[in-house]
């Protein structure tokens, strides 16, 4: 039971129960507001009856040529609302916008290599591990770059896995 709508600044004052989750980072203000100012269509919040925040997704669209893609920066769901496929709904929404509105080739995301529950979930949603990024998280833990091709990438070229891992310096985007 979800009302999914655009995230707005006031939601920042209400998302504490979601962000208390240990894997959900609370970024500085300019980070959130840059996303809101540049990609408001990629920043959505799910609200429960009574107005509680169930979770949210933030992302962006970037790249050039065939690497024009949607990117999931964060997706998180409050513990009370887990195991209801809410993350899936939010991801589908972002994929839809990347696909239909921005005509992107694929959607990608980074996940901690140790975060098995998340990796499994993304796999279920159709993402594949495109490459491993060495010591991506604070110079310690490896990250996995996972991708899902969109309709514009007819031959699914964007998701052919790289054979070797890359370092953070080799990444095209921040």
């Amino acid at each position: 039971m979800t009302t999914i709508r655009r995230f707005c600044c006031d939601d920042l004052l209400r998302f504490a129960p979601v962000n208390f989750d240990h894997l959900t980072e609370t970024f500085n203000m300019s980070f959130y507001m840059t996303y809101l100012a540049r990609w408001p269509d990629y920043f959505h919040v799910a609200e429960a009856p009574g107005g509680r925040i169930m979770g949210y997704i933030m992302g962006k669209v970037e790249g050039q040529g065939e690497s024009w893609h949607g990117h999931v920066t964060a997706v998180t769901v409050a513990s009370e609302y887990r195991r209801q496929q809410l993350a899936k709904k939010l991801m589908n929404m972002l994929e839809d916008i990347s696909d239909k509105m921005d005509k992107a080739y694929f959607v990608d995301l980074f996940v901690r290599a140790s975060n098995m529950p998340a990796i499994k979930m993304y796999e279920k949603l159709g993402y594949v591990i495109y490459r491993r990024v060495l010591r991506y998280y604070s110079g310690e833990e490896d990250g996995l770059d996972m991708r899902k091709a969109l309709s514009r990438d007819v031959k699914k070229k964007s998701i052919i896995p790289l054979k070797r891992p890359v370092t953070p310096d080799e990444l095209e985007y921040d």
Partner: protein
Amino acid sequence: MASKYGLAGGIPERRVRPIWDAIDSRQYKNALKLCVGLLAKHPSSPYALALKALILERMGKLDEARSVCLNAKDLLYSSTAVHVDDLTLSTLQIVFQRLDRLDLATSCYEHACAKYPNNLEIMMGLFNCYVREYSYVKQQQIAIKMYKIVGEERFLLWAVCSIQLQVISSNGGDKLLPLAEGLLKKHIASHSLHEPEALHIYISVLEQQGKYETALEVISGNLGSLIGIEVDKLRIQGRLLARARDFAAGAEKFQRVLELCSDDWDAFLNYLGCLLEDDINWSKASVTDQIKLSNSVDFQNCKLSTLTEEVFNFRLSSALSFVQNLQMKGHNDCVRCPYLATIEIERRRRLNGKADDFKLMEVLLNYFNRFGHLSCFTSDVESSLHILTSDERNEILEAFGKSSESSSTIPTKAIGSAITIFKIQELFDCASCFPVSDLEAIAVKMVDMYCKSLCLSRELDPQENMHGEELLSMACNVLVHLFWRTRCLSYLLVAILVLEFGSNIRRYVWQYKILLLHLYSHFGALPLAYEWYGTLDVKNILLETVSHHILPQMLRSPLWSETADLLKEYIKFMDDYFNEAADLTFLAYRHRNYSKVIEFVQFKERLQHSYQYLMARMDASILQMKQKTDKLEDVECILENVKHGLQFLELSNEAELKLLTFNEDFQTRPWWSPTSSINYLLETFEEGTAHRREQKHQVDARECVTRKAIEWKSLLPRMVYLSIQVASSFLKENIELNGSVSDIDYTSEFKCLLERYARNLGLSFEDATEAIVGISEGKKSFKEYDLEMVHLINFAVFVNAFNLCTHHLEPGVGHQQSSWHIVNSLVEKCISEELMHAQPILTSPGNNLPILVDLVTESISWHILVIQSCLRSVIPSGKKKKKPSATDQLNLPQLQPVHASIQCLTNSIQDVQTWLEGQVNKPEDESLDTLLSHLQRGDTEQGPHQIFRILEETATESNPELGERISGSLQCWNSANVIRKLVVAQHRSVTEFHCICASKLRLLESFKQLI
């Protein structure tokens, strides 16, 4: 920044690049050297000067930076031949901004715009300057100019946004809306619109003027295609139709939304709202809501429907059949909206007095059967459960119980349903009516159930929530309730152990952390509470919304360094945000997300008026003063930084207080302390009264209390300052009686502030004076006044200081005692009263340590400052030039009361010291044994002991079904260690306070040596 160079101010890029590289890599010395070289070649280049200023600013040489910047500005203004570009201007702008001189940056841009009238880049820079200054009219004017030059849609929208901002920020600004509409219309006629955000703004301009039909025509016409997602368009159309009171058409739109997104609860509420022609929610939507495209409806406040019974029933029946249809279509168990909708329909029926009562119960039970195992079940149906009668509540609980026993075969679902039932009991506040034995049994059941269900989580990743995690939070809630009722310490200790046990198994459960932090706070183990707060990783915007969990306790504690850190981090976050807020707004302008522009400005305003921010700034200064009371000069420096206390008086004027915003998120607070100013555990439990009072009422009352607290705090620094001032001349009155103008000024201001202070306490100045005199003479007692003692004693301290210059309270003139004596007597009485009731912190949660801390670190400290100031005036410090007649001025009879005060403070603090010493010197093991005995003694079959036993047995028995990870963490469990940590933390609190008292005593001793 480095990417922005090019031909800057006519200087070749290759000469500039190394300087930027050095700046970017923070090699400022090198950058400066290179820049000096550049200036040698281009001495009259404003750009080179701007770079130099930038480097100097980064090096912290602010004065030099300012002067170089001003040189560059002069150059820009003076020479007609000089090359001016946006890079030069923007570099200067950065420095001016950092030097807090936005006005100078703006005037540079204004000058450049006048010089190059059609340079779009510079005009955009100027627009940005106005954005930074929040000058909406000027923003509008320059945007219109740009629009006229190039005719681009974006500049028109910049102007329209600037108009919207004027409308929002002022009364009567809405006369501008027709202008905005006219501009847009004209542009659309010739160029159409190309951006979805432009269309949103156009619609909101129409909506704000109530032109719903026009807005509908626009969105339903060609321009509507700009909205890429069909349901978004339908939602807007639905909203507009409802606002235009075309409810039938509105309902149709929302029905269509539900067909496409059957789980959209908001759409369902809007659909129902339209069907029932419930227009209260549509017409009052604020401008902000319209701009944010919000469709939210407050259905808690639904009033009686105005429809006839027949129509009402017909409409609800059609809604019911529609949602039943949706139920049939959906096969996904994750879609709950069509099912919850049936409950909402019955709820509406009942609110209108047209209900079949069984029906509501029936749909609730159906919903439970389907979704009862979900963690969010209770919050889903909360509003419907609230309207049940008490009989119905019992009935529904029974029905849920039966249903969960008979249906759930999957263990995870069974535990989920059981948790839901406990949660509903919690919601109904059953704890207040159940007998103690029943409550004990419930707590035991919860803990037992948690331990037995551990095996269900054996395969789970440590990152995932475990099944039944909530049971321990709920058990804690019940145990705390039992403690409240019985005052039996073992309940509280077991509540702590239960949560620590859960955290030991999975350390990521924030609900446990918050409960623990509050339990430890109440138990006087603040260092441990602070540690748990640390594990919540509260930072950035969370500092605004959730630091209420720890900050109020810390401010009344002796943990000064941690408290200062908390305040510093919070204030820094807010200040940093305010510094960058305007640039982020400009970013939204640049990226053509106009609705965000308005949202950003409003959000910044909201945070700017945050009560917590205002409070924190005052608290930070007051805390600094507390930390430095040993040295009068240091306190004077602190006061100087806040304009001798005037700054806070200005910040807390009535107009500002009206604008205050309260942004805390109280959702996560424990039941016994729903806001930071309420702690039920400090009150007595009264049989049969529900502790959960109306939430809204609590919040309103709290806001009122907070406004008072702000006023009170804002007065404090200024009154301390005035006290120091008048005390410094108290022995010189004869000499300066006619000569000192400033003293006379202080007198009237001081009197005025004392009156305000008294008013803030709810008393007139005369009544407050009478109170302190009465108490000091033993004719009245503190208890007669419903006030915190520290406030009254502070008043006495300030009155005494005031008296030094006015002799308002003179012995023999209606009063028997001097004002010095009044302070002494109040301090003495208050401390002895507190110590008489004081229990050792170890076994008395919620004890009076904070009150004693307040007395010593506030009232007594402010009085010590007065004494210091008096003494300084007669005994100049060694380094100062000794006045030749200083000793002659020593008027011993007049110093007598000072001396007596010093002795009185010494005695009182010594009494506190003695009380503290008993606790500081108690061996840790002894304290540990005392607490452990509360857990171990007595009948082991009684609730708390039984729970303790369950935890211990679960930890020690080896159960292969639990898997390696859970078994491993159970092996590490040691309840004695948990209690020991508690003891250590309490000990630290007491020790810190002991140190503060010791330092005060040393100071007072040094005064004695002086006279």
